[in-house]
């Protein structure tokens, strides 16, 4: 590998103009991340015309900054308002918001920012050294592999719940059911669309997440507005304590690697990475019962994972010309508009663009960390605003965000309906987490399975015969069948010894 091009990439990244656009990008990104419903894909599309006049490297540095900046910003609403704007921050909302309720919003956001920074930076380092070697990994994942991956994900969703297993499963099943709304992915048959083509393309994830979590939470709190609010204890410091740090550091390390690896996979990588990270942390924890009630590892792990995944999701785009998600698709368009074709030739034909953009991410992550830490204090103070004032403001921002996804008022109505569902689920003891994550994984599972069946001519054994999907099947069997059985056996033995 020729490191002179890597180094000259630093020179590009540190040009004053590029530094400026990096700063603009991450600031805008953080802002839209905080505003639920406004996604990086739409924002980048809106800003595309501005980039026509920019030099290609500066343009892409800014647009990339919007993407990973949004990941930082999204955490803030997940923790403070329990309103995840991206699939990858759903699990952050679980323990992050529980911490905020305990008065530890500052440390939670502090750890999240540091975890994001470490995850992002580690991922850039890995990208620099092994991106070309790993690029092919994205191609080793065909429909069969995605089927098994999604199946693993759905079983992991089961570990999220902190209450009844049956209720978690019911919530997940409902999420899977809602995911089938829209035209059948292989045959185009309308399913549960009730004759309207507003539902033809299915329901947007953000609408589901904002409805069930955000609006549902606001409605729930509204019912009990007369109850004296449990005064949020001291706001604590933005700086995490020694204990927070001790508990988080291994989680951050594991999360970064998980995120980097899964982020390379186009479609579902980032969501899976935060989910896997959360499940792993819960497994290795000494007291798994703390999870769901404010375990800092449940914030640190997934946050480092989703930021690492955000960075490594650039790999398929930059090395193969495959956009891994909606934002990457818009970036693909942005590069094409600049006369640069993303793909295998990019690294050799435009090394200045490739390494300039990659290295600007170090700068961007540093800027984001520097922006986040002082802002945490400001955001945490938001919790001091009376709920009577905070709730309507949040609702309006959420509604405007819901509208802006497709510029469609129908989506606002849909979100209100899902908000009522979220409220009802709360009252009846169902958790929204399994619902929302199963919703994301459901379409992936069904479409991939059916594509596999077409490719294999209906032969189910192909799943175990292919090397990658076979390995994943083994992982699935191990985690879903073998480990729980062993645990039960061991638990029985301990019981017996205790009785003896």
């Amino acid at each position: 590998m020729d490191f002179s091009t890597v180094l000259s990439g630093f020179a590009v990244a540190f040009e004053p103009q590029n530094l400026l656009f990096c700063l603009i990008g991450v600031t805008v990104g953080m802002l839209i991340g905080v505003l639920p419903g406004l996604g990086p894909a739409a924002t980048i599309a809106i800003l595309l015309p501005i980039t026509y006049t920019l030099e290609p490297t500066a343009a892409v540095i800014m647009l990339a900054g919007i993407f990973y900046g949004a990941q930082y910003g999204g955490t803030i609403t997940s923790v403070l308002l329990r309103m995840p704007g991206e699939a990858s921050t759903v699990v952050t909302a679980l323990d992050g918001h529980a911490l905020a309720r305990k008065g530890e919003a500052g440390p939670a956001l502090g750890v999240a920012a540091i975890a994001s920074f470490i995850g992002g930076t580690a991922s850039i380092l890995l990208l620099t050294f092994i991106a070309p070697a790993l690029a092919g990994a994205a191609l080793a994942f065909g429909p069969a592999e995605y089927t098994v991956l999604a199946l693993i994900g759905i079983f992991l969703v089961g570990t999220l719940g902190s209450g009844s297993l049956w209720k978690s499963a019911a919530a997940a099943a409902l999420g899977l059911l809602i995911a089938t709304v829209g035209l059948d992915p292989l045959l185009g048959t309308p399913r549960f669309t009730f004759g309207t083509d507003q539902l033809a393309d299915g329901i947007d994830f953000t609408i589901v997440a904002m409805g069930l979590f955000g609006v549902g939470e606001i409605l729930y709190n509204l019912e009990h507005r007369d109850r004296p609010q449990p005064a949020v204890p001291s706001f604590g410091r933005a700086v995490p304590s020694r204990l927070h740090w001790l508990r988080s550091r291994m989680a951050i390390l594991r999360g970064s690697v998980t995120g980097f690896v899964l982020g390379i996979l186009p479609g579902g990588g980032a969501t899976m990475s935060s989910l896997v990270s959360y499940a792993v942390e819960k497994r290795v924890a000494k007291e798994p019962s703390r999870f769901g009630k404010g375990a800092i590892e449940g914030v640190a792990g997934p946050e480092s994972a989703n930021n690492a995944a955000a960075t490594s999701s650039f790999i398929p785009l930059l090395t193969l010309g495959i956009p891994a998600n909606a934002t990457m698709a818009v970036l693909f368009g942005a590069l094409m508009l600049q006369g640069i074709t993303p793909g295998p030739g990019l690294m050799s034909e435009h090394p200045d663009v490739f390494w300039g953009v990659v290295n600007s991410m170090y700068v961007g992550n540093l800027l984001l960390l520097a922006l986040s830490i002082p802002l945490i204090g400001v955001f945490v103070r938001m919790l001091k605003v009376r709920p009577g004032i905070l709730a309507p403001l949040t609702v309006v921002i959420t509604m405007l965000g819901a509208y802006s996804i497709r510029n469609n008022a129908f989506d606002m109505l849909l979100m209100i309906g899902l908000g009522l569902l979220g409220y009802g689920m709360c009252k009846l003891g169902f958790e929204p987490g399994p619902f929302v994550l199963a919703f994301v994984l459901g379409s992936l599972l069904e479409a991939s399975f059916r594509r596999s069946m077409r490719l294999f001519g209906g032969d189910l054994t192909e799943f175990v015969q292919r090397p990658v999907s076979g390995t994943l099947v083994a992982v699935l069997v191990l985690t879903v069948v073998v480990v729980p059985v062993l645990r039960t056996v061991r638990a029985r033995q301990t019981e017996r010894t205790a009785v003896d």
Partner: protein
Amino acid sequence: MNPFPRRGLLAAAAVSPFAALAACQVQGGADAAESDFPKRAVDFMVPFDPGGSGDLISRAIAKAAEEPLGQSLAVTNKPGANGAVGLKELLAGKADGYSIALAVKSLFAITPLAVDDPEAVIIDDLRIITTLTNEAYVLVVHADSPYQTLEDLLAADSVNYATTGVGTGSQLSAQLLFTGAGIDATDVPFDGGASAVTALLGQEVDAVSASLAETMPQVEAGELRPIAVFSEERSPFLQDVPTAVEAGFDVVVDQRRFIVAPADVPDETAGVLSLAFEEAREGAEYGQFLQDNYMDRWEVDNLEAKTHLSEAAAEYAALVEDAGLQLGDGA
């Protein structure tokens, strides 16, 4: 049954914000001459997701048309159901020329073959303001594939091919070709061009039919090999690749994009818009955009365009009928 009163919503949407704005502005005479058009920004609706080909071309032409039009063009994305959601809203709005939209051929010629919608937008509801592009579909195989030519591929025992989705030109072109050739071929619809191309790069499938914009980057990088284009004549971007017609299969499938307004927009207003867009098409920057995105020009008058669209719809329907194809499951 239906919890969401769509009719009501559409009626609500009918009064566009700009109409409300016009009501507030009390300037000029009550009914100033039509030639005043446009007095304010024109709303250009793109019924597709931000960042896709439809979005990019709309933004490119909108930028080029602002100067000749003398007003700004506000691009708004309103995606859903291959453009049907947006166009239905356009039709529910005022036909005053201040609301125009992008439309694509596949919605009128191919979608009806796959999806049964009694309330589908038909081309007679619309007035074509200007025509923009013609994008050819191309059949590609992996660079390491044993199939060097279309003949090789059609000699195979069985073929798995990826398409970019149900009811797309990608699916129609490939199905017509393989059925015409009478070989055992399995259609695997993916979710858009990127995932179909990924499946081919990973050699999960033997071939993909997709638009030039979706495949050319990989073709130029030497990862994929084009073996046939589904246009009448060879594509200027792929001079060496034969058409399916040359190989003896009468399969011509392409995607065409054009700008529409509701059918009863005043002639004079439509004329002003048409002129502005015609001038915009001559711009150098727009030309470069087409070149960079592998799009061919389709620049005909609106009568010819309309004829082309209705003929294509009839032709595709007949072809599908003859071949006994089932694109989707619904219709």
